[in-house]
């Protein structure tokens, strides 16, 4: 993993922003410590020789068998109108939320 540096507060806050997670100030130091322990631990993959690298592996079927491209009814126990506040003409209606309209 080459040049690794330990993760600092700024980096944890940056990753939290990417992940859309609010981090409380009081828990930040503990998170920094735990993330460093986890990342230090997984860094032992450095020891696996690079010249023995294989292509990535995924289990399961070699290629996904696709269904015929025909619309099927979605097997729902209740119609969409029953689990959303409002459902009109095939669309869920949600409350307008602040700056969402400006994005």
């Amino acid at each position, binding site marked *: 993993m080459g040049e690794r540096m330990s993760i600092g507060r700024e980096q944890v806050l940056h990753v939290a922003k990417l992940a859309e997670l609010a981090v409380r100030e009081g828990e930040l130091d503990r998170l920094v410590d735990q*993330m460093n322990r986890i990342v230090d631990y997984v860094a032992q993959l450095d020891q696996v020789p690079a010249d023995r690298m294989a292509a990535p592996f995924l289990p399961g079927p070699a290629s996904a068998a696709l269904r015929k491209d025909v619309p099927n009814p979605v097997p729902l*126990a209740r119609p969409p109108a029953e689990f959303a506040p409002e459902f009109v003409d095939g669309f869920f209606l949600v409350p307008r939320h602040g700056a969402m309209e400006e994005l």
Partner: protein
Amino acid sequence: VSARAVAKETGARLAAAEPLNATLHWSQALLDAEAARVDATPAPGPLAAMPIAVKDNIATVEQPTTCASRILEGYVSPFTATAVRRLRAAGALIAAKTNMDEFAMGSSTEHSAFGRVKNPIDPDRVPGGSSGGSAALVAADVVPAALGSETGGSVRQPASFCGVVGMKPSYGRVSRYGLVAFGSSLDCISVFGRTVEDAGRVLSVMSGHDPLDATTLDRPPMPVPTPLPDLRGLRVGLPREYYPADLHAGVAAALQRTRAAILELGGQICEVSLPHSPYAVPTYYIVAPAEAAANLARYDGVRYGPRKVGPGSDIRALYQATRGEGFGAEVRRRILVGTYVLSAGYYEAYYRKAQQVRALIAEDFRQVFASGVDLLLTPTTPTPAFRAGEKTEDPVSMYLADIFVCAISLAGLPAVSLPVGRSDGLPVGAQLIAPYFEDERLLAAAAAIEGAVQPGAEVR
């Protein structure tokens, strides 16, 4: 016996087991409705009136599906998981939804938003995880079988800690439709049973291709395994990386007894090597959090569950406040680690490297099985069940509880944990691993071994 009578008895047992905190949702009324449906069916099928508990990350329409998370509190799925639909069609009664580590992230069922589950053998100890509620209900004799899910050992490890059978099928054997996604390249609906036979019957019904999950293989369902009368002609490999010098003495003794039972049944034992298995846990703790960070992006306070409005009125404040408060500590930690290893500048060093080591781990298994070894035998866990609170402050020490189960998940192979003895009263599990899609043969051999060991007997 009528399903109605089974429902009544199961309700009484669920009520008596409440102190374990193993269930999140159940009611006598729902059990009775399940029974009425089965009793009204002329030919109820191979699981007629069998009560089965279901982990709370598997979708059912009658009860909530919360993944033991505040972020999904009260969420009721509008569809039923394929596995559950198939169990019902075979006559099973869905008995309860079970407690678990939040979003299946954990090895002790202490990371539930609704409180920890107690191990029925010793309430001061953990039942293992993340499917600890399901394991505890089978161990406490509340139900003969229960569904769990595995991403990196979450059924085999609690099966070992609770002294029951835990079977993880081959990836692609059972549909993931309706299983809440955690690590999509690893997730498998899996099964606990009091016996190998119970687990095999349930797996047989659940298995088979599902057009709603393109990662299921287009092959017929697994037949119900017929126990082998003996193990003559079978070669069982002991991978040396799974028998460290400092293995817990009780676990080592129980495995020694299992080897003796295999020899007595006519099986052969040989030593083998899986040289990349020691890298399984660090590989897993890159791959699984990366997939989880992507899968859990959908819980944003708009589409599911409760919503928290953060400071300011923009949509990102809504996301961040909802997710920051809705997810527990372990889930947040894994989302952060997953996001970190996928972020610009780190993707190649961590995620790509882990994917490549994953291929080497899988290749080790392929080569050993190609060399004429039929099954592998390892301990399921390095120690018996640990005490509650012992590992909650140190995530890495908690992750190491999965040291013998992770590699199999990364390789997509089938494996079963069998109770093979007790050490100071605590159950010890042995893990049998088979080649890809040899689930039936694995269970047939496991049933022979099950009949030759005394799971309730002390080993030293």
